[in-house]
Structure formats: C-alpha cells, structure tokens
C-alpha cells in the first residue's frame, strides 16, 4: 500500500459513511422538507468525497479531467434540482410537518383541505402576513 492508497481509503470511507447516512435520512425523516436535508447536503458531500478519493488512484490527466468534470456537474446540478423541487412543493401548497401536540401551526390552521394532511391551502405567504400584522400592532402601540 502506497500513501495514495491510504488517502483514497480515508476519502472513500468518509464518502461511504455519508452516502449511508443520506440513505437512512431520506428513509426515516418525518416529512418532505426534512428529507431535503439528507438528500441535498449529504449526497452532495458524499459524492464529492468519493470522487476526490478516486483522484489519487490515477496518473492519467484525461481521467483526472473527467473526474473534475463530473464533480463540477454534480455540484452545479444537485443543489439546483433540490432548490427547484423545494420551490415547486412550496408553491403547490405543501407545508412543513409539525408535531400534533404543537398548539400554533401557522401553516395549516384554519385552512382545512381535502388533500390534508400532506397539503393545505395556506395563505400565499403566512410568514409575511404575520410579520406585517405584528408591525401593525407595534404601530398601534406606538400611536397609543
């Protein structure tokens, strides 16, 4: 075993661990928005680690160039795809999951929908409306 084999082993072990945790996270997280975390971050870092580890196994510059090309493609497209999925889901009306015991669910209360519990026709931007209401209360308080 040369030094580059040890380096490759470390990077591949890290990449394998990240890939496994990504799979477990996608399988076991409670809702779509929390599944984005293992799918978007862990997979990107895992593939980066594996491909960097493989870079030490070759001396051919063409293979190195192709590996760099694959890394740059994946690092460009994976976050873009994750962002597109998230935006499409939010615009469709999918809202984050909360525990049933939580009293305040700003996304799903007062707006029952036949597609519940996964979809709910919440107002377009509940965070903006709530903040504007709070600002209005603050203005009224300052007037008093």
């Amino acid at each position, binding site marked *: 075993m040369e030094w580059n084999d040890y380096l490759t082993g470390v990077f591949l072990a890290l990449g394998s661990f990240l890939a496994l945790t*990504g*799979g477990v996270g996608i399988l076991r997280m409670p809702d779509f928005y929390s*599944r984005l975390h293992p799918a978007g971050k862990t997979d*990107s870092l895992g593939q980066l680690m594996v491909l960097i580890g493989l870079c030490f196994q070759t001396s051919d510059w*063409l293979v190195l160039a192709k590996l760099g090309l694959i890394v740059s493609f994946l690092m460009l497209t994976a976050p873009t*795809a994750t962002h597109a*999925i998230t935006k*499409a889901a939010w615009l469709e009306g*999918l809202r984050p999951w909360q525990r049933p015991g939580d009293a305040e669910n700003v996304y799903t209360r007062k707006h029952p929908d036949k597609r519940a519990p996964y979809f709910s026709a919440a107002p377009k931007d509940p965070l903006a409306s709530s903040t504007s209401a709070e600002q209005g209360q603050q203005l009224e308080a300052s007037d008093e």
Partner: protein
Amino acid sequence: MGTVLTITMFSLMASILMTLVRALKGPTSYDRILSVNAIGTTTVVGVVVMGFLKGRPDFLDLAVVYALVNFVATVAILRFVEQRRLG
C-alpha cells in the same frame, strides 16, 4: 485497493436501496422526485467506482452523460408535475 472499492460500492448500493424504499412509499410526488434525483446522483458515483473497480476508465464518460441526463430528467418531471404538461 479492490476491497475498499467493493465496500464503497456496497454502501452506495445500500444507500440506493434505502432511497428506493422512500421513492416507493411516497407519500407525495415530491418525495418521489427527490428520491429519484438522489438515486441518480448516487448512481453516477457508483458508475465511476465501478469503472475504477474493473479498470476501465471509459465508464467516466457514461458517468458524465448520466449526470446531465439525471438533471434534465429531474427538471422535466418537475415541470410536468407543476404544470401538467411539457413545453
């Protein structure tokens, strides 16, 4: 070196299997799209590792093509789900 590459290949396949279970279970279509995208990313890495395992660097070209096709497919499926039509 072959042992390390084989172990990496097996862990990638286990990750793909777990992601596939999520793609089959759903419950929303966005979970399925996300899972298929993650499977595609893992498959690209698996193709590269397989090329190094078999000593065939030609597999890297397949990985480049698969990465591009995976991204285009994800965006196309998203547009179809969003607008119920392509174009």
